[in-house]
């Protein structure tokens, strides 16, 4: 019930492509869904986050799409660049457990020049 499932495990796109990473959850008490970006040797850094009262949020080249009825959310990266090559984690948390984040398994994204 606490799990967040993420796919794909790895993704390779060409520069300018639009990688899409998907996550699914079961616990309807989750009410905060952030995406984190992690470069090798670094800690996760917040990229963008969404709450379930909206279906889409865009910040720069990054967009979250949220489907509350399907309990799914996804990250789209527009005009991807080699510098976007990193591991991306979706996560979820709920008000009743503070900011405890439940992470997905991670997606290793490679953007080729």
């Amino acid at each position, binding site marked *: 019930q606490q799990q967040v499932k993420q796919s794909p495990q790895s993704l390779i796109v060409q520069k300018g492509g639009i990688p899409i990473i998907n996550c699914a959850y079961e616990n309807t008490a989750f009410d*905060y869904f*952030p995406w*984190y970006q992690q470069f090798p*040797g*670094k*800690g*996760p*850094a*917040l990229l963008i*986050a969404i709450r379930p009262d909206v279906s889409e949020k865009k910040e720069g080249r990054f967009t979250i799409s949220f489907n509350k009825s399907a309990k799914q959310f996804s990250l789209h990266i527009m005009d991807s660049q080699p510098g976007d090559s990193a591991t991306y*984690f979706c*996560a979820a948390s709920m*008000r009743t*457990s*503070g*900011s*405890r*984040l*439940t*992470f*997905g*398994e*991670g997606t290793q994204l490679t953007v080729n020049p």
Partner: protein
Amino acid sequence: EPEVTQTPSHQVTQMGQEVILRCVPISNHLYFYWYRQILGQKVEFLVSFYNNEISEKSEIFDDQFSVERPDGSNFTLKIRSTKLEDSAMYFCASSERVVGTEAFFGQGTRLTVV
């Protein structure tokens, strides 16, 4: 830009030894967390800490683990008797409030138990 700092960046210890991982959270943050990431796996929550006490802990955070805020700036994770399976990257994080604010992560301490 304020950041969470962790020391050491890498620690090697013998099985059965005690280790203390140190963190300096962002100065105006009130909530502190430890997460771990076993190589190639997802980031897992260990414990959250607020107002000088544990507010939540996961099933991973058993009696061999403890946390402390020994002074106004440091936040530590102690592993009393390390096991091989404790080898992982340990991340400290902090947030300004408990809900609706970003959790900032440090760059981690790689713990290797031999």
